[in-house]
């Protein structure tokens, strides 16, 4: 039964490969480097989706990594003891919210708020940066990035927390003995000691960000284009699968979507392999446990 995991990995690989063989043969490597997505003319290029996935995940990481690691440091090093357990429970609850519900909240609450307050502010003061130019519609790449950040915050926080907890107490005691303040002990003795594991936590978060589907689909605007402005709608690999899979009318269209699935699987499996290797080198069973 344990070998089921091997069967599953092979199953995904084979099924996605078989499903997209026609598209792979027809478009070859160009599939990854062209940006026309026109089902009617049967022209398929995945570049806008790859771009959208990478950019939205990057926004998510920029937001979630500092917040997540700071929260983890707060939970293990800085917070008063009585506050730690309740906070951990709340973060676990956040992790339990399904993607579709966060998406629902995203379209009806978060996007209108972003459109009315922070976005005009950013445009007014930072409009000279190409990232913040152009009209503000509401659903856009930026909103997608923010919703992904919310989705991956719990995993980055809880894995980082387990890693910081696994730092030996001697490290802290040594720093305090030298007269370090609490923050200095955290920075010098704990955070830098745990650096490798924290990279693992971040890359694990990246893996989740790349595959996040429903919530992003609901707020990113679903337009395949490559533009600098974050206020413009985008599209991700996972979203195009969610939206167009049941609408694929021709064989080649379906095969192209299978190939999108293959690309997504390829990217996420590489990222997850890297994350697991990093987490394993610091060898904490507790860190891998937090992943679930």
């Amino acid at each position: 039964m344990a070998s089921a995991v091997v069967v599953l990995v092979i199953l995904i690989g084979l099924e996605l490969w078989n499903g997209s063989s026609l598209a792979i043969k027809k478009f070859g490597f160009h599939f990854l480097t062209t940006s026309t997505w026109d089902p009617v003319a049967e022209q398929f290029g995945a570049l806008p989706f790859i771009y959208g996935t990478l950019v939205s995940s990057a926004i998510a990481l920029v937001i979630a990594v500092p917040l997540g690691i700071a929260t983890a440091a707060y939970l293990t090093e800085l917070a008063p003891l009585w506050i730690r357990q309740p906070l951990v429970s709340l973060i676990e609850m956040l992790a339990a919210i399904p993607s579709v519900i966060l998406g629902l909240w995203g379209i009806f609450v978060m996007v209108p708020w972003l459109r009315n307050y922070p976005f005009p502010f950013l445009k007014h003061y930072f409009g000279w940066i190409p990232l913040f130019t152009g009209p503000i519609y509401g659903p856009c790449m930026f909103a997608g990035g923010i919703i992904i950040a919310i989705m991956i915050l719990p995993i980055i926080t809880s894995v980082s927390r387990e890693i910081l907890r696994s730092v030996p107490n001697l490290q802290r005691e040594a720093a305090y003995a030298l007269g370090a303040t609490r923050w200095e002990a955290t920075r010098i003795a704990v955070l830098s000691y745990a650096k490798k594991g924290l990279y693992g936590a971040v890359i694990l978060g990246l893996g989740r960000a790349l595959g996040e589907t429903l919530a992003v689909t609901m707020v990113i605007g679903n337009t395949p284009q490559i533009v600098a402005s974050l206020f413009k709608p985008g599209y991700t690999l996972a979203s195009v699968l969610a939206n167009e899979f049941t609408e694929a009318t021709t064989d080649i269209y379906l095969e192209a979507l299978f190939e999108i699935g293959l690309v997504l699987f390829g990217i996420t499996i590489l990222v997850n392999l890297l994350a697991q290797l990093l987490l394993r080198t610091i060898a904490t069973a507790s860190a891998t446990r937090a992943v679930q």
Partner: protein
Amino acid sequence: MYSGRTDNHTWRKIKSALASAIAFISAVLVILPLGLVFFYLLINGITSVNWDFFTKLPAPVGEVGGGMANAIVGSLELLALAGAIGIPVGVLGGVYLAEYGSARINSVLRFLADVLNGIPSITWGVVVYGLIVLRFKSFSALAGGLALALIMIPLILRTTEEVILLVPNGYREAALALGVSRWKTIVHIVMKTASKGIITGILLALARIGGETAPLLFTAFGNRFWNHSLREPIAALPLQIFTYAISPYDDWHRQAWAGALVLVTGIFCVNILVRFLTRGRGPSIV
């Protein structure tokens, strides 16, 4: 010179307090979305959670009213199907990893299970689409259940293995010394001791897949009526929420909020039940 040192010391203390404050603000920002989501679910959903919601089928397009009875039952059916496949495979796989096999191969299997846990759930939908839907030329409850089961397997496998490894070796040795056979030791002594932990893992996995939408989009597909056969499309609560949320009708938006409130309540109840089950044991056993 002396005063310089004092200033430096004060500055270091201020910096430490500042860092603590920033870390605290980060923690607040992390849990802020939880509060906001819950608040809006309550104010937008509570008025629409009524008897009709639990007992009626969706109203025809354009009409106001109706409920999500079929979606709630559909979600439970899908969970049962997924559990029927995913629980035995996951639990037995976990037992194998903890009790049998060579250490080297097991660590590879464990690694693969962890990697599988990070694969986007929509990928499973695509795989099952190719495997079942294309082959039988129909979206079906079976396909939906299978997609969810495949997500469950690596999850349950890892949690089961971990709680079984926590069972002290003395228990096994005592049973084996009494001449109890290996499999009887595992079933009656080891699994029984770890049963709470195993059940916890199963419940958490069910709560997790109960909210999954992406793998159901093109397997279970959704259905506005009751499902009469496992070979036909079936409705599911998260799917219905998605369809209603992106629709242009206000009445559907209202029901999406209600559905979301019901779904979140269900998932939180399972999580609280789990906490109740594991109470008194260290957090490490979850």
